[in-house]
């Protein structure tokens, strides 16, 4: 038996760097990195745009232990290029997922991304497609792939599609999960469609509380590394394979969502339909009170 060293570092997930998040997530001292910054696997494309490279290309991957069990970990660094997927960044996650499948070892992805890195858009887009395929191939071998969302850059664009392939998603209030970002919608469709400067609108449309309430995420946690750690340990215990039964259940739950909420103009209407007494209070509720109010939320159990 391996002695489990509890990790009790107090840390804001939102404020932390990718490396700090990993250190606080896994059992103390258990992380070892693959293809670390000393190997200087940098993006071959950023210099075309006179942009600085980073030696890990904005993603840290490796192996650690979580409550004593071996786990593979990938953490995006939202402060480098908005955590966006380029060729090297994406290939590191693809390689790790293929390893997860071969080794039958669970994997945790710490999302912090604006999506595809435009300076290498084609490579980034293909990396997203390769990662989604690798997630599903790993899950079909019984591997759990759990996504954690609570970083500065949120989980946008192609990152949000990868999140949708995970077996479980853990999110904090600060986590935002959405395909098109607020600025993208406003730029393309106008400020009448979406005012990206209306932060309250952004949070209630794309933020962690709304995603948890509609079943877009499975666990809601405080913006605390320890809370993410405990939720990840729990999430890894209940895996769902990606088979026809699960996808049929997902089909039913997503159809039901359109039937129930498809006419809603705003998140508050959806929260009201979910039986929350004071729906306009939801953004202000502390975690405990929010979870009590969320009793009748939609969930994605066995349907993701």
């Amino acid at each position, binding site marked *: 038996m391996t002695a489990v060293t509890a990790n009790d570092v107090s840390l804001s997930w939102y404020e932390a760097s990718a490396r700090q998040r990993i250190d606080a997530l896994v059992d103390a001292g258990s992380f070892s990195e693959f293809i670390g910054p000393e190997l200087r696997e940098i993006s071959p494309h950023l210099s075309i745009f006179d942009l600085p490279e980073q030696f890990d290309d904005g993603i840290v991957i490796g192996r650690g232990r979580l409550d004593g069990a071996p786990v593979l970990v990938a953490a995006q660094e939202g402060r480098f290029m908005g955590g966006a997927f380029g060729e090297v960044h994406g290939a590191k996650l693809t390689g790790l997922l293929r390893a997860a499948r071969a*080794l039958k070892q669970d994997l945790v992805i710490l999302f912090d991304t604006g999506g595809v890195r*435009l300076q290498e858009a084609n490579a980034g887009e293909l990396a997203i497609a390769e990662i989604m395929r690798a997630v599903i191939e790993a899950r079909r071998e019984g591997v759990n792939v759990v996504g954690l969302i609570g970083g500065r850059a949120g989980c946008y664009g192609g990152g949000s599609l990868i999140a949708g392939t995970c077996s479980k998603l853990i999110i904090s209030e600060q986590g935002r999960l959405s395909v098109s970002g607020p600025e993208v919608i406003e730029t393309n469709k106008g400020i009448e469609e979406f005012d990206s400067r209306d932060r309250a609108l952004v949070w209630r449309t794309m933020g962690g509380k709304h995603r948890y309430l509609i079943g877009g995420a499975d666990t809601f946690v405080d913006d605390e590394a320890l809370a993410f750690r405990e939720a990840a340990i729990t999430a890894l215990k209940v895996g769902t394979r990606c088979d026809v039964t699960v996808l049929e259940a997902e089909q039913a739950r997503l159809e039901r969502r*359109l039937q129930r909420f498809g006419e809603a103009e705003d998140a508050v209407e959806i929260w009201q339909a979910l039986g929350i007494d004071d729906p306009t209070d939801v953004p202000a509720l502390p975690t405990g009170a929010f979870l009590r109010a969320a009793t009748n939320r939609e969930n994605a159990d066995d349907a993701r």
Partner: protein
Amino acid sequence: MTLDDILTGLFPNGRKIATNGAQISGQAVLPDVGPVHVLGITQGQPLGVDEAIVLAGRVIEIVKSGDRAPILLLVDSASQHMSKRDELLGLSEYLSHLAKTLLLAEAEGHRTVGLLYGGSAAGAFIATALATGTLVALPGAHPAVMDLPSMARVTKLPIDVLKAKAEATPVFAPGLDNMVKTGGIQIVWDADAPLAPQLAAVLRQPQGQDDRSRLGANRGGRRKAAELAERIARAAASPQEARHG
């Protein structure tokens, strides 16, 4: 080539394909192969929650039929539907779900072939064409992550500068050639030759692993991805990496 030209060229012996808005769905017979399921998102329309759920439902029905017949997915779309409503309802889940059903179909024995004959961009491209086992295109197809004017706005670079840079690398600019060079599209068909034998040839290839990064390396468009992913898989399997905890 119009959608009708393409369908007639592929299935001269008959087809039964229904149109529902910008979506098509049905069955056809491919000469020398047999029955093929045909699905499509057409007319350059965006892909939102309402469209994705219908397509995904159709793919699940096909999988449940257990006939293991190939699925041909025709794609001429815009990007994902950019709207407050779609994001409020969780568009990412709908697009992922559609991609997952296509990946499931392949894993359950259906060959899945994407045929890009028009545009496609961003999330819509990932959820449809890029979720098939083999992606082919017709000349004139125009895949994109983002158009150059929008890219110029985001990168704060003049469009002329971007165009000049696009000459030097296939890695960022939109377009069919670039998506071929980076390995996303396996082959561009010959529009002047009969189409049916070209699809039959794709279906005769053995069903393999995801070889897009290898194609990208061979074609010089993505030199690092394949090698790096392989090195990581080796590093993860190496026993001395596991002596922790």
